[in-house]
């Protein structure tokens, strides 16, 4: 081991990660090998390097051996690099002098059955890390101010909660909702499990509270269309769709809606009943204002209808409104646009879309709702008769290799079960069958709810129906293998209700691309860490809440709304944040060719024609390094990923294999 003054003094810390690494890789052998590498002055093997004692061990070694480079061979930098960076800083070592080598996720877990191969690979990876570490340079992080405004995308229950929490803390919140009213899905529910309390009765006051909060600016019927900037300094472009209503004059009396001659399926009632082209979204809407859907208005067909204008005694109808855009500045963004339920029409699951009497549980919810199209009387669509036998089928469009393999996390088990309970409690003489593969009832009161369902006489049949056949009278026969009885059954019912799974919103792709948040296998947005960063994203200053990052029931969505608000508040309260030091830098060997100017996606590089060299605006540079790869003379570099630093790794790739 070399000990000369002024040279690199590297310490290598190999982590066993319990048995995660140690069970496959011979960590002691890796450490012994590391000790033979140039510049390495000490090595240490820990059971858990990230633990308090493991970190203390690193700090102790930094002091005792006067280390000026640290190599940690452990898990993944994606989760643990920040931990060890802080550990180094605390011991007086610049955090960028840490090199992180992944010998778990990409070695021991990868080659479980090949201990020898994994150990050899671990040695290679450590060697690559040591050679790179020798060339690392200290970097300073720049500090930026955090704008105290917040943009919340989506005003469902999660977004509302986040907005309220931050508004109450005194931060200005732009609550952007695509629909004409806030409230989201929860506003459409009749009752909510497992307590069966009236959904709008608990949500309505919350919606009013949001509107009253002086720090919340509701932007309904609006969408975020562009996001520029970075943590603390986002510039968000919002598109405001024309409502054709003067918001100051309208009082939501719905006179215009009554007089509107147009009839279109009422979306709020899942297509049951109709609404006019001029309409008030629903009685508890916030803001309680009318909206005119010009697409369905007679005026869009060139007809001179003035029914709404005549009906409005406040002169609030204004057809001259145009789509407009506004730009707001915000320090953080909370993304809570929710998700949708699977549409069984696309595959005509169980005859949905063909047979009148096959409906979704969301449609059934509206039928049950006292404020719904039938004022709470359940009827079947084909003949408006009250159904006496119902079949509820779970897992339609979820846990299915043909549509969506993911489970909706128990939400639709509970949802469909709740609807069956509501009906059965109202009319005990009605027969309810519930077809399921497994019942997932995981949280407080849920299992009791399931027990209650069985006690009141809902018949649970374990088996996924193979088909539903329509009879001439509109009745339906559900064909199913009852896997508990071990027999095939044909059960005749009057109405079939499909428990549809939770799937991504059609806008999710747009949102994911606009914000650069990756999507998980289920198509929903991906959180920074599934366990420890459930509302963070990989982007600084951008948080997720609610079912946009996985199926969630109401308490879970509310908790996430509050969680995202508190994570966001960390930045807002402090008012400043640090930006990574990994940016581009060019030196005097620049020949002013300007190739890097063209490839920079952010316009952070400009060509100074007088000096014949390029200039970098570091505050705009995000540190991708594309410019460095483009530079034909090696004048442009990416800090922390300099050519020589990456090459040092590449040149030391293979020694043992």
């Amino acid at each position: 081991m070399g000990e000369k003054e002024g040279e690199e003094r590297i310490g290598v810390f190999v982590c066993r990660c319990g048995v995660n690494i140690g069970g496959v890789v011979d960590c002691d052998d890796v450490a012994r090998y590391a000790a033979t590498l140039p510049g390495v002055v000490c090595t240490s093997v820990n059971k858990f390097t990230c633990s308090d004692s493991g970190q203390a061990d690193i700090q102790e070694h930094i002091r005792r051996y006067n280390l000026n480079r640290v190599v940690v061979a452990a898990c993944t930098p994606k989760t643990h690099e920040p931990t060890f960076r802080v550990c180094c800083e605390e011991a007086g070592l610049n955090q960028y002098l840490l090199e992180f080598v992944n010998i778990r996720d990409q070695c021991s877990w990868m080659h479980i059955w090949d201990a020898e191969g994994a150990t050899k690979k671990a040695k290679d990876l450590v060697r690559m890390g040591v050679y790179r570490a020798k060339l690392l340079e200290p970097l300073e992080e720049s500090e930026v101010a955090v704008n105290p405004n917040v943009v919340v995308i989506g005003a469902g229950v999660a977004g509302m909660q986040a907005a309220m929490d931050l508004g109450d803390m005194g931060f200005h919140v732009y609550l952007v909702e695509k629909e004409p009213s806030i409230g989201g899905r929860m506003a459409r529910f009749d009752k909510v499990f497992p307590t069966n309390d009236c959904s709008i009765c608990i949500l309505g006051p919350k919606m009013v509270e949001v509107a009253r909060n002086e720090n919340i600016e509701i932007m309904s019927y609006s969408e975020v269309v562009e996001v520029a900037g970075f943590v603390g300094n986002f510039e968000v472009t919002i598109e405001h769709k024309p409502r054709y209503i003067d918001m100051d004059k309208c009082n939501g009396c719905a006179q215009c809606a009554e007089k509107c001659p147009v009839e279109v399926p009422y979306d709020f009632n899942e297509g049951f009943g109709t609404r006019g082209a001029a309409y008030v979204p629903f009685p508890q809407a916030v803001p309680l204002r009318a909206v005119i859907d010009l697409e369905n208005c007679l005026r869009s067909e060139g007809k001179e209808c003035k029914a709404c204008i005549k009906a409005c005694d406040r002169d609030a109808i204004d057809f001259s409104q145009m789509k407009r855009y506004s730009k707001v500045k915000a320090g953080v963004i909370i993304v809570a646009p929710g998700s949708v339920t699977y549409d069984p029409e696309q595959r005509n699951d169980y005859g949905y879309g063909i047979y009148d009497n096959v409906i979704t549980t969301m449609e059934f919810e509206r039928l049950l709702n006292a404020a719904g199209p039938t004022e709470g009387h359940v009827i079947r669509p084909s003949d408006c008769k009250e159904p006496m036998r119902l079949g509820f089928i779970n897992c339609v469009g979820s846990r299915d290799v043909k549509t969506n393999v993911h489970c909706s996390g128990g939400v639709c088990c509970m949802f469909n079960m709740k609807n069956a309970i509501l009906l059965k409690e109202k009319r005990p003489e009605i027969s309810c069958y519930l077809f399921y593969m497994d019942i997932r009832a995981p949280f407080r009161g849920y299992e009791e709810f399931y027990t209650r369902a069985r006690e009141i006489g809902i018949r649970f049949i374990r088996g996924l129906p193979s088909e539903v056949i329509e009879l001439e009278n509109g009745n339906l026969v559900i064909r199913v293998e009852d896997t508990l009885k071990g027999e095939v059954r044909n059960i005749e019912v009057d109405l079939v209700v499909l428990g549809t799974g939770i799937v991504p919103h059609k806008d999710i792709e747009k949102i994911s691309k606009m914000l650069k948040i990756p999507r998980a296998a289920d198509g929903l947005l991906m959180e920074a860490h599934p366990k420890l960063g459930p509302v963070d994203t990989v982007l600084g200053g951008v948080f997720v809440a609610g079912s946009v990052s996985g199926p969630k029931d109401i308490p879970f969505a509310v908790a996430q709304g509050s969680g995202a608000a508190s994570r966001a508040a960390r930045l807002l309260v402090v008012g400043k944040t640090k930006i990574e030091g990994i940016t581009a830098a060019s030196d005097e060997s620049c020949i002013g060719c300007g190739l890097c100017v063209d490839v920079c996606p952010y316009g952070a590089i400009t060509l100074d024609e007088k000096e014949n060299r390029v200039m970098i605006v570091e505050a705009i540079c995000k540190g991708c390094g594309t410019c460095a790869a483009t530079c034909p003379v090696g004048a442009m570099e990416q800090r922390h990923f300099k050519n020589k630093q990456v090459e040092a790794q590449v040149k030391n790739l293979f020694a043992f294999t």
Partner: protein
Amino acid sequence: MEFEPKIVVFCCNWCSYAGADLAGVSRYQYPPGVRIVRVMCSGRVDPVFIFDAFENGADGVIVTGCHPGDCHYVSGNLKAEQRVGNTRKALEYLGLGAERLRLEWISASEGMKFAEVMQEFTEKIKELGPSPLKSRFK
């Protein structure tokens, strides 16, 4: 001894590196001849790094990045695509063969795809045999 191909994978920090991690977390196995070099963006991969890898014993190189449209840095992956295309031509011209260099889009949720690509590429390189550069440098 059976030929065990040496593969170098350049992974972008945001999608592919996380995809490689997910392969590990999910325990999808692939051959230990694979070495990952992390860069912030696939757009950072200088063709020089690729040549360096071949010079230093690689039998195959894969550059991986976010799917088009998903790049954390807007368009770095598209720059990578152009460069890899050009570098493949150069490799063909040099006699190494274009098929020893590949570009793959692997997202943070595609752990299985990561493992499959590594398996499949390793098999492909086994068929091609060791890099012809190796005998020159030894």
